[in-house]
């Protein structure tokens, strides 16, 4: 039963309120999760983020800064943003949800198959957190992995931009992708409005006929979206393997669980296929393979 609805006017005030009110308070952004009957946690206090001015999508000299309260639809419509993120946005729920759901809320809810997260990881995105001790940044991959193991009523309690342990998500920074970097994005759903059952994003560079610095992120096969470090290591420096080889490699490195949405065996199979397709698409999209320019740029950053 919600007793307090708080409308802080600044990020500092929001963070302070959260500290004062403790774990029974939840940050509220779009509300598609916190206000839903599916939200497993019953907060006493809601701290609205609407007055914090966090809803901008800005292009900077070296990339993009997305406010935590930017909606998924805003991201979808921001033509300047890298295509993998915009396409990932198009996979989120349906228009009614996309027009309310926010980037910060999406990250805070930290669904195992959150659609934006694999794309953000593949884009080397970083999360900006406001804490009592000042602003703090971490990679999206590190952040979701850390949040997934938080104690308490589960990742949902940290929904809508609130993160009990590390602070309030205020923005996401995305470095401008090198023009030669290739991306692949795949999602498997049963229906058009379905949550993804398995999703994946891959980015990579090409040096000659070699894969360089691959990033492989996959959702739906763990307690949060995972970065498959082992798979990346095996792929790095190699020629493009066949689809079947990548499928088997990925399937061997994920441990999904059976549930009403699919059996473990099925999800493992689809995970392999999603990543393999994403790798191939990324490979095709990665330019500069012959002279290796793309890769040296990438590695120089």
């Amino acid at each position: 039963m919600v007793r307090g609805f708080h409308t802080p006017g600044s990020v500092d005030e929001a963070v302070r309120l959260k500290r004062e009110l403790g774990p029974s308070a939840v940050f509220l952004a779009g509300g598609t999760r916190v206000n839903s009957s599916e939200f497993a946690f019953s907060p006493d206090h809601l701290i609205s983020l609407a007055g914090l001015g966090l809803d901008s999508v800005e292009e900077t000299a070296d990339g993009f800064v997305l406010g935590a309260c930017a909606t998924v639809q805003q991201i979808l419509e921001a033509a300047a943003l890298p295509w993998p993120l915009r396409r990932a946005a198009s996979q989120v729920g349906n228009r009614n949800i996309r027009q309310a759901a926010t980037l910060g809320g999406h990250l805070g809810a930290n669904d195992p198959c959150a659609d934006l997260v694999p794309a953000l990881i593949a884009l080397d995105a970083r999360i900006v957190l406001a804490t009592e001790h000042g602003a703090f940044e971490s990679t999206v991959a590190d952040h979701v992995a850390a949040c997934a193991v938080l104690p308490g009523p589960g990742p949902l309690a940290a929904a809508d931009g609130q993160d009990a342990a590390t602070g309030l998500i205020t923005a996401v920074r995305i470095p401008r992708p090198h023009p030669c970097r290739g991306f692949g994005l795949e999602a498997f759903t049963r229906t058009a409005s379905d949550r993804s059952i398995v999703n994946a994003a891959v980015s990579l560079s090409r040096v000659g006929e070699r894969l360089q610095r691959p990033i492989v992120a996959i959702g739906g096969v763990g307690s949060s979206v995972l970065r498959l470090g082992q798979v990346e290591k095996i792929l790095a420096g190699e020629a493009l393997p066949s689809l079947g080889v990548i499928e088997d490699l990925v399937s061997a490195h994920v441990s999904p669980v059976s549930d009403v949405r699919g059996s473990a065996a099925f999800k493992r199979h689809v995970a392999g296929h999603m990543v393999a397709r994403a790798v191939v698409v990324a490979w095709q999209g990665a330019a500069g393979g012959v002279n290796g320019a793309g890769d040296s740029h990438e590695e120089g950053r």
Partner: protein
Amino acid sequence: MAIVFKLNGAERAVDAQPAERLRDVLQREGILSARNGCDNEGTCGACAVLVDGKLLNTCLLLMGQIAGKEIRTVESMARHRQLSALQSSFLDAGIVQCGYCTPAMLLAMQGLLERAPAPTRDDVKDALSGTICRCTGYEQVHGAVDLARKRLADPDHQTKLSPEFREDLDVVGKAVRKVDGPHLARGGAAFVEDRVRPGTCHLKLLKSPHAHAYITRIDTSRAEALPGVVFVLTCENAPDVAYGSAGQGFPEPSPYDIRMFGRKVRHVGDRVAAVVAETLEIAEEALGLIDVEYEILPHVLTIEEAAAEGAPVVQNGPVEYVAGAPADLERYNAGADPRDGAILYQFPIHADPRRNLAAAVHGGIGDVEQGFAQADVILEREYSGGHVQSTPVEPHVVYTRMEGDRLVIHGSTQVPWHLRRIIARILGVPENRVRVIKERTGGAFGAKQDMVLEEVAAYCTWVTGRDILFRYTREEEFIASRTRHPMTIKVKLGAKRDGTLTAVQMDARANTGPYGGHCLTVPMNACSKALPLFLCENVRFDVKSYYSNIAPTGAYQGYGAPKGSFALQLAAAELAAELGMDHLEFLEKNRVREGVVLEILRCLGEGREGTPQRIATCGLGPALEQGAAMIHWGEVATSDDPDVRIGKGVAIIQQGSGLPGLDSANASIAMFGDGTFMLLSGGTDLGTGLDTVAVKMVSETLRVPMENISITAADTDVTPFDVGAYASSGTFFSGGAALNAAKEMRRMILEVASELLSEPTDNLELVFPGKVAGKGGSVTLDRIARHTQSGTGRGQLIATAHFITDKGSFPYGAHFCQVAVNIKTGKVTVQKYYALQDCGTPINPELALGQIYGGVLKTIGHSLYEEMVYDENGRVLNPNFADYKVPMIGDAPEDFRAILIPSDDPYGPFGGKSISEISCNGAAPALASAIHDAVGVWIRTWPFTPEKILRALGTLPDDGALQAGLRSGGTAGVKAEAG
């Protein structure tokens, strides 16, 4: 606190808590059109409104979030009563059926047209991507948006969006705005919840957490002590009356095996107690204060488990018969447990409840053994279908109140008269003490042919005298309303080398769940609506229905036919493949055709002997021919994607038009003082356009404009008896009654005119608009009315008529589809779906098309996505839209066409046959045969999930079982076979 925002153009300061949901506050403020379809899951979109021009779900928005914003609801669209371009276009396109989600759909399109004045088909799909509509199949919304665009430029613009039929008639066969359409498009008060008066109490159910248990102790004292609790009802104080919930004609072919509250619970979600309280919150709190102790019993979930030797007995009460009791009944009842409550049969349905057998029947024609002996090829296969729910966006809901010493029930029901009869019996009062008013229903689809919650509210109101609103949540709708029976059907076919069928055998096994509503007739219907499609001299069927502890089953659009059709049509496809014969050629060779007499129908009556029927009209020939040309049958289609294979499929389908010899409908027409009319129809319009059908019957017959005929329907106090809307009876029976009443009125009018004009009635005819013309002169209806109602007249003209028949009129159809199967993921995409259907004369062509689109998309959902999944304890794991997966606009076939093949049926009104249910019979077999055409595997259990397809392809190991711990009510495992 006061929260200020703009509502439909006016600044409003509303007293609300910041954490209240916007939908709840809007409803409190009199905006009824933001509907609740998913209980705040945020998945159905029925509550969506425009917030600063963006369509948002108001169940997910708190008042604290909308301060200072601009809210627009559908109430903002019409100027006074003048419909907007979009609203009138929706009506002209036939996209308004039940009307419950119409406001959300209109607002979605309003928002779209504001940001994209020339939207593409994809823009429409994107804009409507968050709205669930179970009626329409979404397809006609594309035409509606296009028409609205043109009307925005030119308000008088007209485009005909649907074909017209019967040039000889004025309104029948023409798209005319449905009579209740403008009100629904404006979002006006029309549904049960809109009738609720202030001070109404709320009713909530305490439900069983166990699949099978006796209640050994129940203590309600703490709940009763809670302030605001009005009444608590349990097995201790509920009437001990056995009844059935199936709204079927009396005497019903379903057992009376339900008590309002019994000592035994038979499924997770079964009733344990009801609380009536001043508020919903108090009622919910009180549920937690009821102490219950259970003796947990072993349970059965599948047909195999229920039929096993020594299985736990679901219905173990003493058995009684009204007629036809067996001689050994006393011995049979020796082992009964009185805590189970008695089971009462109106007549024998060959049940053996001690062995969980709820009903059985068999029959046939010819000699199947001889038929199989003559066959060159014999094929035996087993098909099964899972457990699906119709998910009307408006859940089951009832509002009950006393008026004087009479009980008034505002229902969302298909069967007002059956409801009155059953409730009067439970209450122990005569029927004249009960009035049932059928409000507009927000989707029914068969689930509202059963009395699911009405009797509880009715009894509590009868006892307490209080107004009561009882509305199911979406979860309750899944676990405790009515669902389609899971079924396993064995088919054995014999054929000559040339494809001629020599013998057909169908053995249907149904899982009726905890109660026996429709337990005989649903699986029987699987045979009776499938077998007569093929002409074969040797046919046999065998039906058995079993009790179990899954969620209750009942009627669902199509009844048993979708599952019978899947089994027999897919078996025919398999047989054709076995014979090396083109599937279409096989169908053409064996199909039913005009003029034949279907002897098989003699043994396929509903719990009694049926009548053989001569097929007067059958549009299958042109449907098959036209459909084959449209889909380029026989031409191979390929994909650019190396992972994708394309295949085509077909199925032929039929249904009935009501139940000849069982159903009965009545109507009366009163002439008003100016020569206009009030039509009182017993027909129950479920959003199908039945009221419009009835008005058209009168308009056409009496040669008066439709505007001059008002209709009141389905109110047991006001309108004459009708069995209700089920078994595809609406147009044929209720429409037939309206037509007969109109003919009687015409006779009376001509009689009066004959006196006034001094001409014999043979010289007279009715002439549009509202005149009787003779050879010498003419007289207006206005004058006839004034004459008859004057002090020297013969009295107001009131005509009453009924409709019964022993003739069957069968709608037919051919469904063609093209699917893309991804061999890596197993995902099936429906690229093309063409539904060609013969419904006789399409009375409301635009609504007939809408019913086809809606029925097809529902069954595409059943075939590919939908299934209630249970854990080993009988708990439904996916009782919500997100995990159950109802198709939305993004799931509709990219190329989706419904085609009406007219025929002039001699029995139906103006040649009309039924349209709605038949549309559900084609998708499963057509898609399954297309999947086989694409990837060479027969998938014999639905839904055809990606996982099943990968297992059939050998991509995943066929472990013979679904995910560990997960069960489906129909079958223990996944069976598929490559071939």
